[in-house]
């Protein structure tokens, strides 16, 4: 099974749109949405069977027993995350370090399990779609991303392309999506912001030593920047896989819950197919 991860650095460039199309074009039997903070892939790629949901427990969080609490304020003083105030722990800001527990003279603080998200697994006997959703305001999405990918590899026996939809940014969850990937495809936006963000995500991916390819989505909305991005790829020795034009058909299909790959031929569909075939070539040449 070859793992292809789609990233962008910048949000809104079209990762999920392309991921959805690739899944159809590759007839992928295993795919995942690693954008656990704001997952969207299920809106166009869910299987007909209901998802199996499981609570995801992140770090334990501190809870103060008000009966035992003597209001000494020591916990508040030692908490480096400003999570304690007025004898209460704010679970949204608590990072589960346990220092308050150690220092409470009255033994009034305890660490308790905390649900910080849920995993959803769609499986219809033939295909597996692994996704998750981080509970609002939670941290630690790197671990949840790893859980999502773990369920995917439970379908390892299938020999094809596993498509993994990544998240925006360059932090922990993005890094967690990339580990073990055979290739990362960056979906770039032709704008000053897009170029800046692309450079940062490329730099991040380079520290992970994975093969990188770049494509430009909605390229005609910023022709000059598209040129600059291609030039950047040449300078960095990164494979450039093509340009996809802005196409209103994409939004129409997405809003109807479908991937552009399911529509009649359109400029975007043709261009995406081109990018897909080039990615496949790279995936299998290694």
């Amino acid at each position: 099974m070859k793992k292809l991860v789609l990233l962008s650095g910048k949000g809104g460039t079209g990762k999920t749109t392309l991921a959805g199309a690739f899944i159809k074009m590759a007839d992928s039997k295993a795919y995942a949405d690693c954008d656990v903070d704001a997952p969207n892939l299920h809106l166009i790629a869910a299987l007909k069977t209901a998802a199996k949901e499981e609570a995801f427990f992140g770090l334990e969080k501190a809870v103060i027993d008000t009966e035992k609490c003597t209001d000494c304020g020591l916990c508040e003083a030692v908490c480096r995350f400003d999570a304690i105030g007025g004898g209460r722990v704010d679970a949204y800001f608590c990072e589960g370090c346990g220092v308050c527990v150690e220092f409470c003279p009255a033994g009034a603080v305890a660490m308790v399990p905390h649900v910080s998200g849920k995993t959803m697994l769609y499986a219809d006997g033939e295909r597996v779609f692994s996704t998750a959703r981080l509970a609002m305001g939670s941290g630690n999405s790197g671990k949840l991303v790893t859980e999502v990918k773990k369920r995917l590899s439970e379908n390892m026996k299938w020999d094809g392309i596993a498509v993994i939809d990544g998240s925006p940014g360059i932090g922990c969850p993005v890094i967690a999506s990339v580990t073990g990937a055979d290739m990362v495809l960056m979906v770039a936006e032709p704008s000053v912001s897009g170029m800046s963000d692309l450079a940062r995500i490329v730099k991040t991916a380079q520290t992970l030593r994975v093969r990188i390819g770049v494509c430009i989505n909605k390229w005609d909305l910023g022709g000059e920047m598209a040129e600059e991005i291609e030039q950047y790829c040449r300078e960095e020795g990164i494979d450039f896989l093509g340009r996809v034009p802005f196409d209103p058909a994409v939004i129409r299909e997405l809003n109807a819950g479908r991937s552009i790959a399911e529509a009649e031929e359109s400029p975007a569909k043709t261009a995406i197919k081109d990018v897909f075939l080039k990615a496949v070539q790279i995936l299998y040449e290694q």
Partner: protein
Amino acid sequence: MMVIIPLDAGRLDAHVFISFGRAPWFALFDTARNTLKFIENSAAQNQGGAGIKAAQAALDLGAQAVIAPRLGQNAADVLLAADVKVYEAWDGSVEENIALFTAGKLKTLTQVNPGIHGDGAS
């Protein structure tokens, strides 16, 4: 000497596991007594730093050698700081790996996966 091997189950026919930190089980092979024990890996369920915790557990069990298909930077840093020898596992069962190890047929593991942020221990 004590040799530790990450596995997917606690049995003689268990397969070596690709991740050290997240392996469900470990095999403990004592070369002097020629005994083999299986223990569950408590680090596997940890939020983060599983490689570090599992490697620490290995040190605490007196490991002097580890046989694994690969190692992440974190686990490697802990093991190497304690001069534990790391051998590249044969893609097979624990039984097969012990036989190969005893016959001196396993080579040293050279490929250590870079840390997720490029660093390791300091």
